[in-house]
Each structure stands twice: as C-alpha cells, then as structure tokens.
C-alpha cells in the first residue's frame, strides 16, 4: 500500500476508485469521456485569479490541481532594489486583507539583524494593530463563506462590521488597506486621542457580529450538511503539506506561533486561548477561525488596558543600513505562518528576501483534498482553506 493510499480517507479512496471505474466503464460502453473543467482564472469562487483544472466524471472530481501565478508581482525581486523602509509598502500588498500583519515580520527581521528592539509601547500598539488586521481579514472570510454557498446575507453583515475595524486602522495609521505604518525601531506615530475608547466599543460590536455569524451560518443545518465531513485533512497529512494557521489547528495540531515563539511582541501579556478542533473538516477550519476572531477581540481589549507609556521609536539612525547577516522571522498571520528570510550585505536594501506566505502552502493540499469530492464541494473546500491570491502569488 503506497503512502498516498494510506493517507487517503476511506470515503475519498472509495470515491476515487469508483470514479476511476466509472470513467473506464463509460469509455468502453458509451464511448464518452470525462470532462475537464477549467475553474478560473476569473471565477467567483477563486476570489482572485487562481485557476483550478479539474477532471470531472459527471459531478465528481477525479483529479484537480490549482494553477497559480496569474497574479505574480515579483515582490521578492522588487525588494532587492528597495531600501529597508520602502519594502514595507511592498509587503503590505501580499495579503491585502490583513496588510499590517505583513509588515511586522519583515520589520522584526530587520530589527533582529540591527540588534534594535522596539520600545514596549510600540510593541503593544503593534500587537493591537496586528490583531485588528486579523479581525478585518477573518471577518471578511466569515461573511464570504456564506456567499460561496449561496447565502448572500452574511457577507453584508461582514462588510458592515469590518468597516468599523478598517476605520480604526485608518484612524491610527492613516491607511485603511495599506497602512505602511511599521518602522524599524518602532512605529510612525502614536495613537490618536480617543482611539482606545473607540476601539473598545468596536470590539464589543465585533463580538456581537461573531455571535450573529455563529447563529446565521454555523447553526444552519444546510451549512453543517455542506461542511461537516467534507474535505477532511488528517493531522499527519496537514503536517506533511506544511499547513499552518487555522487550517493546521483545525486538524488537531496545537500550534500557534503567537504563543510558541518569543518575539518582541505583546501577545504573552494577554490571557487568551489557542483553539483547536479534532475533526479536520471544512467546518472545523471555519469554526476555528470564528473562535480566533473572538480571541483576537479579547487580546485587543486586554492590551488596550495595559499600554505602557514611553517613546514609540527606539534610537535608530536616520539612514538605515542593516549590518551583514541573515535572519528569519515568522509570525502567526491571519492566514497562517508568514515569514521573511532576509539576507543583508550591509547595504541600504536587502540583498535577498525570501517570503514564506501561508496561502501558498495551504493551497498545496488542495489536489489532495479535492480528489473524489463533488463540484459544489470544490467551492466549500477552497473557501474553508481560505487563501488570498496575493498571498499565493506574491
């Protein structure tokens, strides 16, 4: 028995064998053949320009493979001709829904090379903004989930409540989508007046939104029928494919870089929980994300109470030159583990930047998970794996 056979779930293996058998039978008797369905690059289910080539037998997927690269923007190469402060405006656009979270690991890597540590106040504010961008990101996911299955109401709730979070991010940083706010050694500005009270009010709204989605989607029988037991990724498969973030936690792996890593960030100053789910199916992945959004609002609430006073910038030279060396920093971004491997030769800009983005690895499991499912399940599995095209193609 080969490795892949052992790892395939019973249901998927049977479906695969059945579809193979059906294909050959049809070929002999009716001289018909399976159909190759090209989903994307422009398709509502791929929210971006992802292409999925699926070989179908009737409505069943015999084989499917994502084909990415339609939105490749070459950020790794572009970073080589930018100075360090300029790179943040590039990496903002990788995962465009949680863009502040993209800046943080890169800045942390540069700080690590320079031997600078941001002051406690800016660490706190960084963490708050990081979690806010996670909320902005995942709340859209929660709304989008319904749209993928034909329930168009949740997405409007999601857009309505996400707007409050974007306003907060705009209030603090000046940019709704691309804050470009993180600096080596701290942050660009301090928080504006009244921001803390407003954030607390919004967090209350967001918790209500989570309850609403819980009722509207997760409690819906049709939703459960569509999600439970579909696209099951067992624990060892998830680890082998290098899944990270909520996708990994939904397979029962208790792994969260916010807790497991000691970075100069403020996550360890708040009391929160890492949620896991033993099932590993589509429902588990969505449920873990819903719980994470709730946890994030709690983290933000607690950190708002304990922001220390002090400067927001460490002492760094006006013209930043990063000493020679190599550094790897990764954080638990909304989509999963996102890391930067920065190689410096002591110049104004990085010599080489390797970006490890979460969606690329999360999508690599798609051919495995899509085998043997029905066409409508392609959409739900892809939605629950949750990828952002910018994060796949960079």
């Amino acid at each position, binding site marked *: 028995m080969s490795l892949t056979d052992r790892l395939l779930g019973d249901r998927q293996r049977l479906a695969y064998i059945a579809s193979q058998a059906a294909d050959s039978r049809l070929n002999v008797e009716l001289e018909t053949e399976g159909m190759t369905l090209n989903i994307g690059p422009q398709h509502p289910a791929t929210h971006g320009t992802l292409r999925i080539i699926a070989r179908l037998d009737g409505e069943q997927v015999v084989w499917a493979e994502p084909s990415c690269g339609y939105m490749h923007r070459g950020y790794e190469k572009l970073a080589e001709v930018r100075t360090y402060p300029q790179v943040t405006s590039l990496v903002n656009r990788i995962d465009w829904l949680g863009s502040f979270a993209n800046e943080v690991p890169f800045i942390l890597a540069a700080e690590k090379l320079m031997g600078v540590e941001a002051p406690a106040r800016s660490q706190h504010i960084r963490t708050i903004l990081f979690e806010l961008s996670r909320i902005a990101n995942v709340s859209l996911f929660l709304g989008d989930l319904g749209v993928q299955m034909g329930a168009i109401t949740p997405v409007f709730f999601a857009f309505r409540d996400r707007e409050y979070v974007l306003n907060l991010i705009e209030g603090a940083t000046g940019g709704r989508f691309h804050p470009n706010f993180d600096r080596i050694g701290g942050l660009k500005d301090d928080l504006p007046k009244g921001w803390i009270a407003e954030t607390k009010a919004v967090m209350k709204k967001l918790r209500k939104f989570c309850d609403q989605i819980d009722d509207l989607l997760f409690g819906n029988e049709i939703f459960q029928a569509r999600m439970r037991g579909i696209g099951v990724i067992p624990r060892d498969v998830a680890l082998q494919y290098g899944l990270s973030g909520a996708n990994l936690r939904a397979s029962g792996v208790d792994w969260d870089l916010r807790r497991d890593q000691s970075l100069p960030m403020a996550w360890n100053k708040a009391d929160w929980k890492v949620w896991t789910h033993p099932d590993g199916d589509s429902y588990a992945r969505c449920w873990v994300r819903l719980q994470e959004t709730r946890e994030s609002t709690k983290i933000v609430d607690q950190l708002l109470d304990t922001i220390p006073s002090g400067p927001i910038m460490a002492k760094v030279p006006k013209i930043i030159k990063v000493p020679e060396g190599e550094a790897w920093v990764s954080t638990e971004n909304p989509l999963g583990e996102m890391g930067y491997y920065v190689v410096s030769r002591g110049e104004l800009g990085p010599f080489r930047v390797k970006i490890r983005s979460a969606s690329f690895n999360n999508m690599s499991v798609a051919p495995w998970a899509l085998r043997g499912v029905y066409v409508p399940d392609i*959409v739900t599995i892809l939605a629950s794996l949750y990828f952002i095209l910018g994060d796949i193609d960079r």
Partner: protein
Amino acid sequence: MMQVLALEVPYWGQSLLRVLGGIVAVLLPAGTIVYVFLFKMMSFMQSRLGPMEAGPYGSLQLVAEVGKWLQKEDIVPERADPRIFKMAPIVVLASTFLLVAVVPFGPDAWFTNFEAGVFYALAVSSLSVLGILMAGWASANKYSLLGGLRAAGQLIAYELPMVLAVIGVIIQAETMNLQQIVVAQNAGEIFGFSGLGNPYLITQLVGFVIFMIAVQAELTQAPFDMPIAESELVSGYMTEYSGFRFLMFFIGEFATAGVFALITSVLFLGGWGVPFAWFGWTDVDSVSNWMNIVGPIIMFTKMMLIVFIIMWVRFSSPRFREDQLQRFAWKVLIPVSLGNIAITSIFKVVM
C-alpha cells in the same frame, strides 16, 4: 365580464382580450412589484438601502434595468446552436404565461375556466425545464451544461412531491378546477365553524409545507439554487446569455415566483375569496359582482405574502449540494406527501 360592458365580442376576441389583459394587468405589475418589493426587502434584511436612485425610493428600478438590458448586445457564442439558444428563454417565459391562464382572480375574472386546471398548471409549469435544458445544452459551455443538467434533475425530482402535495387538496375539494377549489375553500367549514371558511392551509398544512418546498426548488431559489449557483457555476444555464435574452430569464424568474405564489394562494389560502359565511353567499353564482374588483386585490396581497416567504428563505439559507437535494426529495418529501394523501383520503371517507 363582457355583459357588464354591454359589448358584443366574438369568442376569439374575448380570448385575445383576456390574454392581453393577462399580460398587461397581471404579469407586468406582478413582475415589477415583486421585483421592487423583493429588492427592498432583501436590502433591509442585509442592513442596506437597496435601489434608491431610479424613481422615488427606487420604485422605477425595474424600468431602469430593462432599459439597461435592452441596450446591450445580443451575443450568441460562436459554437452555440443559435436557433435553440435563441429559443430557450422564450420557452421558459412561455411556461410562466401559460401558467397564469388558469388562475382565477374573481368570481368572473378568470382567463379560462378550465375543468382540469390543476392538472394543466402542473403540466405547464414543467415546460420551463425544457427551456432550461435547451439553454444549458445550446450554450456550448461546460458550466451551462452542468447547470442545465442539474436543473433538469432537480425539477423532475421536485415535480413529484409538488403533484403529490396537490393531490391532498384535490381529494378535499373533490375537483381539479381552480375556481371550484377556491369556492370549496371559502364555502367550507372546519368542524361546523364557517367563520374562516376552510382554507387548506389549515387542513392541509403538511401538503402546504411540501408544496412550498417544492415551489422553492421549482423556482431554483436558494436553498435549491444548484442549477444557478453563481459562486460555482457562474449562473449555470444563464452564463452565456446577454442583453434581452438574459432579461427574459431574469424577468421569468421573478414572474414565475409571482405566478407560483398565485397558484399557492389559490390552492391553500382561499384564492380571491373571503369566507362566504361573512356575506351569506353559498356558491359562486351568489357572490356579489364587486368581488371581481376586490378579488384581484386580495389575490395580490396573498401573492406578496407567499413571495415574501419564498424570498425570505432564499436570502437566509445556503444552498444544498446536488446529492443532498435529491436525497431530500426522494427520501423525505415523497414519503411524507404519500402519507399525507393516505391520511387525507381516510379522513375524507370517514368524515
């Protein structure tokens, strides 16, 4: 009706007038009002305002949309079968128009007083499957084909519980004439109490629920909108249509919702009538003439109510998967509706 106007109109002229009247007086306002009502309602459910620009409070939105669609190019894909491709939306819309022909709106306000009205309505309503299948096949598009095949499978599966649910009504009313069904409901009584008439909504509640579910599937609205499935099949059989032909599908969708709501209200809610006991009427001939004016208004109110329920379900539930949908039809709806028929017949014989 013609005697009221004191005109001598030949039979063919009467038929023509009735058909024109049907289109102008029923279908267009029904489509328009259902459309605007639906969009407003759905917007309020989703915490937004909906159409606001076209006309006062967005009431002319449909006119604006029609204007927009009429300006668009009528594209026929290169590899499509042009004749069938062009014919398909007409077939779909035709089934809606044929359907409205048997609906009675008042004691004399009907287009045809057809003895086998229910039978005709159910037969004609399945014509739209043909149009959808034609559209799906002729588009030469894989998504359309999948959508068309799903539609065919679904509509055939849900035709059956729909017919079986109506059989309960037919047994109780002892007629297949829609006008007689209305009269039977309004002249009837529940255990000697005639203040409400006998709307089959109460005595045929199971049948009503099954019928509504089947209507939902028949109209391909969520949670049964697998054939359209905009997030996976990109509108299924409608993918390749543009301009006026898309508009026909689009209006057909809302008009069919309205017409099915009319049929539901005739079968289960007492149609145009008020309980006859209120005014001391006994049968259709004793009903006052003013019901010809009030009847359509009552019908319209009931139609809006049913459309509201249809759309409410549509906007609050995700969609089933194809196999779950079939399983639901064959394993739940059909056995339950057969049981409903058995129980109804036992009651009919015993009581």
